[in-house]
């Protein structure tokens, strides 16, 4: 009896917590489907009389969200693919190749992971303005084409594959390059997926850097565009919430499908410290 009671209590608390976590999302969806007068009803209503899907169309067309969306997709995909490429190559070198200064280079990079990224913003801005890249895709992408964090995570995964398979592949006639792409990468699929998904999320949601390096409206990414939109939409919360929804939705969908990998990635990345 006491056991059953504690079980009920357990579920009650967990459910209550889950509801708290969900309320902002539900409130966002609810508001996004209301008419303007409905948004300022007191007490607030959760389910609008008729669902105002038009809010989405209106929000989408009131600011160049299509353009923001394209920008975000381009920046996120190029950054992710590029970073994955440079990281896979470097991680392979650290995991399997022999070279002078390997440990020294590795330790230096490990040290740079301690530096707060915010510190790098000013010099990077200066560099990119000198290269004339500010307000171009290049500024949004190039600085993020390498990440030592990703290199580090992949190196761990590569090192955990049996060395004999490397020898076997070499004896079977595979070059290092072939071994990397036909054996090592497929074998480390789950870690690669995990870092990829984390990178996509990070890239998609990035705010401070895109805010700083974009000036013109057409170069904004979704979060920056959404931020700018608040000034235009003012107090039309139903439109703001609709806009927030379509910024959030792609990552939520991604999350639903790749949850396993995201969580694995966090465990791997987070637990390393």
């Amino acid at each position, binding site marked *: 009896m006491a056991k059953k009671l504690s079980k009920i209590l357990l579920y009650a608390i967990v459910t209550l917590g889950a509801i708290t976590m969900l309320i902002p999302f539900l409130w966002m969806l609810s508001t996004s489907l209301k008419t303007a007068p409905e948004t300022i009803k007191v007490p607030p209503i959760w389910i609008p009389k008729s669902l105002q899907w038009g809010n989405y169309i209106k929000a989408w067309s009131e600011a160049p969200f299509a353009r923001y969306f394209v920008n975000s997709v381009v920046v996120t995909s190029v950054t992710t693919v590029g970073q994955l490429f440079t990281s896979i190559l470097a991680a392979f070198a650290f995991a399997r190749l022999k070279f002078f200064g390997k440990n020294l280079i590795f330790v230096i990079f490990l040290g740079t992971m301690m530096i707060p990224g915010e510190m790098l913003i000013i010099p990077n801005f200066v560099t990119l303005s000198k290269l004339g890249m500010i307000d171009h895709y290049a500024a949004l992408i190039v600085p993020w084409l390498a990440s030592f964090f990703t290199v580090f995570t992949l190196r761990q995964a590569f090192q955990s594959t*049996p060395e*004999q*398979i490397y*020898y*076997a*592949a*070499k*004896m*079977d*006639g*595979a070059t290092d390059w*072939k071994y990397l792409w036909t*054996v090592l990468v*497929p*074998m480390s*699929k789950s870690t690669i997926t995990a870092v990829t998904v984390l990178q996509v999320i990070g890239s998609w949601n990035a705010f401070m850097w895109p805010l700083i390096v974009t000036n013109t409206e057409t170069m904004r990414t979704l979060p920056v565009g959404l931020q700018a939109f608040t000034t235009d939409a003012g107090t039309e919360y139903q439109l703001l919430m609709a806009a927030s929804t379509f910024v959030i939705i792609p990552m939520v969908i991604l999350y639903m499908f790749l949850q396993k990998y995201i969580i694995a990635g966090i465990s791997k990345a987070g637990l390393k410290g």
Partner: protein
Amino acid sequence: MKVTFKDVTLSYDGKKDTLKHLNFEIPDGSLVSLLGPSGGGKTTTLNLISGLLPATKGQIFFGDDDVTKKDALARKVGMVFQNYALYPHLSVRDNIAFPLKMQKVKKAERYKRAEELAKLVHVDDQLDKKPGELSGGQQQRVAIARALAKSPSLLLLDEPLSNLDARLRIEMRQEIRRIQRETGVTTIFVTHDQDEALHISDNIMVLAHGTIQQFSTPTALYEEPSNLFVAKFIGEPVINTLPAEALKADLVASVPASILARAVTAGVRSEAIVPFDNGQGMVAAIHAGLRHAQKYGREATAELSYNGEVLLSTEMADLPQAQTEGDFFLTKAGFFLFDEAGALIFGGDSHDQ
């Protein structure tokens, strides 16, 4: 392919020699096992043959080719690793065909070859499975097929049976022998299990302390161990050893005095201690205490106490249980004397020199 080592030395750190001045010749088409205790240098020797590990000094020949400076790929050896090292993301078919794919052999052709090899090693019903879905023995077969796919100059196997259970081990060792006979490829395998080595090899190389202790046929290894180490290492139960001093009085008649003077240790195989003179040549008759000990299946062991030494015999099954002492004989076969350095000076064939 014949393999020749000329004065090969290997040092991992440039200071201590792991293998010292190895000289041997492995005949073409034979099945050779490298046998020895762990840390004795067997796997190192295999890696030197494979080209995975470059020799510090000396020369290695495949046939008449000096391959010392060539890497594993150029030596065209097929290797089966201890953990099989199969590609976990590829099917059995693709695993076997991988070396051919790297040689840019056309898909249809390499799959055809993969299927032939799968048939040879009896995994042709598993072609579409991933290695993870196979049993240890099947993975072993796939690994052998993959190693054979490139028609290797040599087939090398590193502890191929160590990850299998006892029953499978016996099955697989017969399989390795069969596959070797069918393909005729010179095969070298590493093992720490003498039973394995004795059963399937044409020749056995016993390696310990970084040197070759003996390289000969399994029979010679047993019947004529070149030193005390080999005598002790080969044979089950372990050979009886006792100070030669304890036996000297009983040996005067059969062993030349010059040899006897140098003898430090005597080795007596348990089957060389018999209750009757069977007329096949005896080196000594001894009087000893007897204690029947154990019977396992058709084998019985008895302990003899002789001059303060304990000797184990497997030939006392027919004696009455009650008997507690008697006169016993040591047969010439299975009796050895070793000098101070451990080298064989009497026994096997060398006694009539």
